[in-house]
Every structure is written in C-alpha cells, then in structure tokens.
C-alpha cells in the first residue's frame, strides 16, 4: 500500500484502510498494475489535448509538446537553455542585412518514413507552407507561419499580412538558402519554431491531397493531422497512435534517429485537464510526470519524494490596460497609480512558484535586451493615492477582467492573483468591477479586442529575442492597449530592423526604457511553470521555453 501523502484524507483513509484490511481486500492493483510495462513506457500528464499532429497547423503548447518529440526544425535551442543551436542545420549564416539565410544541413538524417533529409526536402516544406490556400490561410490555422513569414503566395483575404517569405533554393544536396523580403527580428529565432519544423517530403505530398476544411461552416483540421500514420519528421520518437477517446498520444522510439536515441521505448502523452487530476494521477503512480504543477502542490510532491525541477523563467505576466475601454487610463498618473498600488512582491512571495521574480519591464531578465535602467514603480499606497487625486480620479471605478478555469505557464492561479490585486487597488480607493470569463475564446477575444479596461495576460517566449516579447505588443497600435504613442512604436521598430544581434539587444534595452516611462501596463512577474516527475525517473533537462526533450529521460 502506498504511503499516505494527503493530510486531508488521511484520517478517513485510515478508517477505510482498517475496514478493507479487515475484509481482506488488498490493494491488488497497486502491485500488478504499476510495474506492468512501466519499464519501457513513460506516461506524461498533459494539461490539454494537442490540436494537431502537424505542428505547422498548431499554435498551442500542447501540440508542440507532442510534435517536438517527433519533429525537428532547422535550428533548435540548447537542451535546458534558450540559446539557439544547430538543429537539422549544423551551421547557418545570414547576409549583412539579414535577408538571405543559408543553412548547411546535417548529413545522414532520416525521416520516420525512410526518406532522407536534404535541401530539397527543406524547400519542399517551405514551399508547401507558402502556397497554402483556402482555410489554411486563416490566422486561426497557420498563426505562426503568418507571424514569422507573413502571408502566402496568393493571399485570399486583405486581412492576411503581406508575405515576407521570398524563396527557398537548394544550393546543393545539403545547403538550403531561404530568402526573405525584409530583415526581421523574428529571424533566425523563427527557424527554431515547431511550426516551421521539417517534414518528410513524402508526407508533404500526402498532406497536399487533403483540404483543411470538410464543410464550409467551420475549420476542420485535415485527417492526417488528427491521426498518426501520415505525419513524419526526423525526431527521436515517431508518433504511432492518437487515441482521442482515451485522450492519449502514443509515441515510439525511432531507431533510425541521427542523434542520441531515446532511452525509453514508449512515450505516452495523456491529457488530464485539471491540476488535481494530474497531481493525483502522479501520486497514484498512474503517470510518471506532468506539467503545470499548481504552486500549492510543489512542496507536497517534493516532500512525498517526487521530483519537481525548477525551470528558468522565460515568461512575463502583466496587468494589461485598455485605454480604449476606459479613458481614465489615458492619464499617465492613473496608470502610474495603479502600478504603485500593486504589491508585486507579495504576489511573488505567496502565489507564484519558487524562482518567480517581480517584473520591472515587459520581458524576463533572461532575455537579451532586458534593461536594468528602466523606471521602477515600487509599491507605495500613499503615492498611488495622491497620483490619483492629482489626476482627479480618486475613487475611480474600473472594470477588471480575469480568466476562470485556466492555468497558464506564467499565471498558475488567475483568480487568486485577481483577488489580491483587487484588494490592492481598492486600498488606494478604486472601485473594481470583476469580470470573470472563460479563457477560451471569451477572455482571449475580449482582451485582444481591447474589451477589458484591466486584464491579466502574459506570454511565454518562443525563442530568445526581445521582439518575441515586446514586439508582439508594442510594434504598432494594438487594440489590447489602445496606445497611440509613436515614441514607443518607433523604439521597438528600430530594434526589430537591426540585423546585428548585439546592436539589436541594446536597442531593445532603450525600447524597454521608453515603454516603462510611458507605462502602457504593469509588468507583474516572471515565474517558472513547475513540472513534476515520478520518483523512479531521471527527468530530462527542463527548459525555460518549456521545450523539454523527452528522449533524454530514463527510468532509474
């Protein structure tokens, strides 16, 4: 029988246990069920189902968590870090103004379906994406392609951004050259995204035969992206089965992998929607690890002998303000008052996982471009009060949106955070009207449309470039903020157009300072999303980008 690890049910349990033992009811499954096949199967509890097995059609972490084990992009991040390293490309370089990117590919790389990786294969991928039509052009389907490379060969809708991708040419067997129209801060980081991971040309051909939409009335993902079999990458695992009923994606180690082969033969991602479900499954020994551990559970798990390695922070949680929604926010004093009112330290101390830091700007200190010199807004209730008075906005009443029933890597418990901030803001005499919404789509839609005067939101970096953070918000006017401050935009733009990495990060520093002077919203904190593993597991290196490589893990 397992050790009792919950003070709560312990007493009841004790009673029941006695009864059970008395009736000779042993924990039969406890013994047999667990070690059955466990040695060669690792089960990971994922917070959500993947949307698609084709990373190019996905934009959510859960899809990427799975595909990352089976697909590799031209560039990757170092294991456990955020530094760009070679992926399928051993070396890469760009011309002076960052428009021509040359990749010398790794030799002897095989796809799961036996195809060989070469420059042609790479270009087949990029051309496939570039020539998408119909529903594939919906930003809901190909979000990342459109962010990194802009639009398509033939844009079908004026909403779609103009293409930045120009061409991909196979210079020789193992050299692929990708050209873009404009230098972009999304590069080279963008090349490391799963959304731009390289598929087997054979698979690509198969994809082309399938339309993304079955009926006119909704986005139906193509069959190949919903069942294992067609998709084929070069990763250490190959996807063998997606059992939607059981909410399980099964992967199997790929013998032909070019690098160090996976140590555990079978890898299974099992969706368990709630924190509790995942925690209990781990405690019950039904799974070997899970992500997004509720901060409250970290100590519990550790004291019970489970492993909860801490990731480096690579995200930012902020209190967004929509000036469009509530004009009072147009007054700098009001925004500053709010910043001074909020007790960030307390949030970090009591709510966020250990390793969390109060934020001073819209990016974590792990990102190149983080500036020490930004203007700071420490907690100061008195100051906040007087600022409000100065703005003639004492007892200002304002709407505060927060998401319910959701855990985000940067925001483990939105409702509690909201409650605390609400209390802080009320202390300085503001009236708060709570507006809880379902995360998806209500909340995200409302926030992005600028429908929430105050709101909690955040971002986890895709790759280590400042633009991946501040660029997403402050490159141009954005409904979410309703900011009309050219100083801000130009500062960010300037940085984004600078091809030289080191120069660029200096420009990001300046941009950050400009942004924090203007204070479009209040950066709250950066905190590492906690991930947990079973006692008998040697966990993989945990990644700040939450890009763990499960091929590294093994059983003790």
């Amino acid at each position, binding site marked *: 029988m*397992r050790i*009792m690890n*919950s003070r*709560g*049910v312990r007493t*009841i*349990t004790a009673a*029941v*246990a006695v009864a059970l033992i008395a009736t000779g*009811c042993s*924990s*039969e*499954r*406890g013994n047999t*069920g667990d070690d*059955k*096949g466990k040695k060669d*199967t690792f089960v990971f509890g994922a917070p959500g*189902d993947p*949307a*698609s097995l084709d990373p190019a059609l996905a934009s959510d972490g859960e899809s990427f968590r799975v595909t990352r084990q089976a697909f590799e992009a031209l560039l990757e991040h170092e294991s456990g870090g955020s530094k760009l390293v070679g992926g399928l490309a051993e070396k890469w370089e760009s011309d002076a103004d960052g428009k021509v990117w040359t990749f010398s590919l790794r030799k002897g790389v095989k796809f799961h379906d036996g195809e060989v990786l070469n420059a042609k294969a790479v270009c087949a991928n990029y051309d496939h994406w570039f020539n998408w039509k119909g529903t594939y052009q*919906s*930003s*809901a389907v190909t*979000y990342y392609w459109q962010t990194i490379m802009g639009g398509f060969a033939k844009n079908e809708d004026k*909403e*779609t951004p103009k293409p930045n991708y120009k061409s991909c040419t196979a210079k020789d067997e193992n050299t692929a050259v990708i050209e873009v129209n404009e230098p972009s801060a999304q590069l080279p980081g963008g090349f490391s995204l799963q959304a731009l991971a390289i598929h087997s040309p054979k698979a690509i051909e198969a994809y082309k035969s399938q339309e993304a939409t*079955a*009926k006119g*009335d*909704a*986005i*139906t993902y193509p069959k190949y992206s*919903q069942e294992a079999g067609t998709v084929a990458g070069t990763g250490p695992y190959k996807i063998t089965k997606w059992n*939607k*009923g*059981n*909410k*399980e994606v099964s992967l199997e180690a790929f013998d032909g992998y070019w690098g160090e082969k996976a140590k555990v033969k*079978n890898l*299974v991602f*099992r969706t*368990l*929607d*709630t924190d*509790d*479900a995942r925690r*209990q*499954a781990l*405690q*019950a*020994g*039904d799974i070997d690890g899970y992500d997004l551990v509720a901060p409250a559970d970290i100590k519990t798990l550790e004291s019970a002998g489970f492993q909860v390695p801490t990731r480096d922070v690579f995200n930012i949680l902020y209190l967004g303000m929509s000036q469009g929604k509530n004009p009072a926010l147009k007054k700098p004093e009001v925004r500053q008052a709010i910043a001074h009112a909020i007790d960030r330290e307390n949030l970090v101390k009591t709510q966020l996982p250990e390793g969390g830091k109060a934020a001073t700007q819209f990016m974590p200190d792990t990102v190149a471009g983080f500036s020490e010199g930004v203007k700071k807004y420490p907690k100061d209730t008195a100051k906040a009060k007087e600022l409000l008075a100065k703005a003639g906005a004492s007892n200002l009443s304002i709407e505060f949106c927060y998401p319910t*029933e959701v855990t985000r890597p940067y925001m483990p418990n939105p409702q509690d955070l909201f409650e605390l901030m609400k209390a802080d803001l009320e202390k300085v005499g503001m009236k708060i009207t709570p507006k809880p919404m*379902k995360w*998806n*789509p209500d909340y*995200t*839609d409302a926030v*992005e449309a600028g429908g929430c005067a105050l709101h909690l939101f955040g971002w986890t970096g895709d790759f280590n470039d400042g633009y991946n953070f501040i660029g997403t918000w402050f490159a141009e006017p954005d409904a979410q903020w309703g900011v009309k401050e050219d100083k801000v935009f130009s500062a960010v733009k300037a940085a984004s157009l600078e091809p030289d990495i080191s120069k660029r990060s200096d420009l990001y520093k300046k941009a950050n300072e400009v942004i924090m002077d203007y204070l479009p919203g209040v950066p709250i904190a950066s905190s590492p999303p906690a991930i947990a593993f079973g006692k008998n597991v040697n966990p993989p290196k945990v990644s700040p980008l939450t890009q763990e490589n499960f091929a590294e893990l093994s059983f003790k």
Partner: protein
Amino acid sequence: MLRLVVRRLLQLIPTLLGLSILLFIWLNRLPGGPASAILGERATAADVARINRALGLDQPIYVQYGRFIKRLLELDLGTSVQTGQPVWDEFVLRFPATVELSVAAMIIAILVGIPLGYLAARRRGGWLDVASVSGSLIGICVPVFFLALLLKGIFAVNLGMFPSYGRLSTGLDATHVTGFAVLDGLLTGELDASGDALMHLVLPAVTLSSIPLAIIVRMTRASVLEVVGEDYIRTAESKGLEQKTVRGRHILRNALLPVVTAIGLLTGGLLSGAVLTESVFAFGGIGSFIRTAIDARDYPVLVGFILFIAMVYVLINLLVDLAYSVIDPRVRVH
C-alpha cells in the same frame, strides 16, 4: 405493442422539432452569434465573414432554420471547436464509454438498491431500515463532484486500490469491437484488458450510482410498504402460501412496478451526473468531453449533445413504457 412503439416514435418528432427551434433561437441569441460560436480562438473578422456567408446568415430567419434542420437531418451537427472534427464523429467515438459507465452505475444501484429497500421495508423501524433510509437521504445531499473527489482521494491516491483516471491503463488497449472496453476485452479474449477496464470502472460507477441508488432504495421501500397493506396480499396469506411465494410473486412483483419507471427516468438523469463524474475521473466519455466543451464554449458540441440527449432520453422512456407494458398487464389493454 408495435403500435405503442410507433406512436411513441411519432411523438419523438414534435419533441425534437420544438427542441431544435429552441436551440436555433439559443444559438442566434449567443453573444457574437453562431459564427463566433463555431470559430475558435483568434477568429479574424475575415473568418467570421466567411462563416456568416457559409451559414447564409444574410438570408431570412426561416430559411436559416430550414438549413439548420436540414443539417441536423443529415446528422451534420457541425464541427467541434476544440478538436476541429465533426461533432457526430466525436459522439460516436465517446458514447460507448458513457454508456458503459452509466450501465455499470445503474447495475450497482439496482443490485444494491432493491434488496436494501425491500429489507428496510420488511424490517421497518429496524436498524437496517434507519441506516438505509438515512444513508439514502445523505446520499442525495452530497454533491456528486465532491463525492467523486473523496473516493478518488481515498481509494485511488492513498490506497492505490483503483486507478485514478481513464478507462484503460496506457499500453493496454482492447481492440475496438463494440467500444465498450470491458466487453471488447472479453470478445477479443484480451481478458487482462477487460479486467483492467473493470478496475477503471469501479470508482466512477460507484460515484455515479450514488443518487440513483439512494432514490431506488427509498422508492422500493415505500412501494413495498404500500403493497404489503394491499388486500391481495391478505388473500395470498389466507391461502396459506409459503412466505417466499407471497414475498416473491405477490409483494415484490407488484412493488417493483413504480421502481421500474423510476429506473428509466434515472438513467436519463445519469448523463447529467456523468458530466461531473467523468471529468473528475478523466473518463474518456461524452461527459468529460462536454465538460471541456463547456469550458471551451464549444457550442456546436453542446447543441449536438442536447439534441443527442433528448433523443436518448425519449428512447429510454419508450423502453420503460415497453417494459412496463410487459410487467403490468393493466397497461397492455388500451
């Protein structure tokens, strides 16, 4: 008999029609309307426009309703926002799990409830009576999800007697024949699979059975008490029949009539409880699917499910009536 079936099936039509109207109105009342209901996250104005065109939302309302009905008749319940797959397929995929769970729960409720209720009535005022009555009263008052969490915490997490989630341990997967894990295992001879599926079934089924069990106990008890006082029982006694004959043939047989009806209605209600139970035990049935659909505002799924349930419900009632007309001769005539 057949006429009854036909009549009831015909009655099904107006019910569903009315329901579809309600749903149609509802869908159109939704904030943002059907388009945003169908589209998922990051739906651009372009998408919405495209959808509206596709849905023909520019046409007059009755035309739209016509299309709506037409699609329903083609079993086209739209596409799930969460999975991007046809709603109907999703149901077909998940329904067996829920049926399996509900049936298991019902079996427990019946096998425990009827004997318990009977004994309670016979030993009226005895400790068993008091225990089962108060037990059933409490049973009704415990929120299902709390019970589920409690059972899980004790038997899965702390005692490790049962798995804490799912229908089957990973790696094990009985090849699909019926979709009922337990059955499939038996059919395909993968006994370990069905055994495993059974273990997975225990906790959710027990949780789900709590309310029907409570109700069945009390109904059986009440109706036995009532029947015992009937003249024909006195007649049976006056004939000097053996006790078992009197109890079995005369008391129980009559006492169960109302219980049967109740069981039918309860089965319909189970689906509601399944949403909570399944989501606690991450049981891959419609219930947990709906729960996530609720979280994700997956309206096509919800609409589809409501229609689906309505049908199931009416069919169940039909079955009950049939069963009733078999066991109660008085119903058969007319």
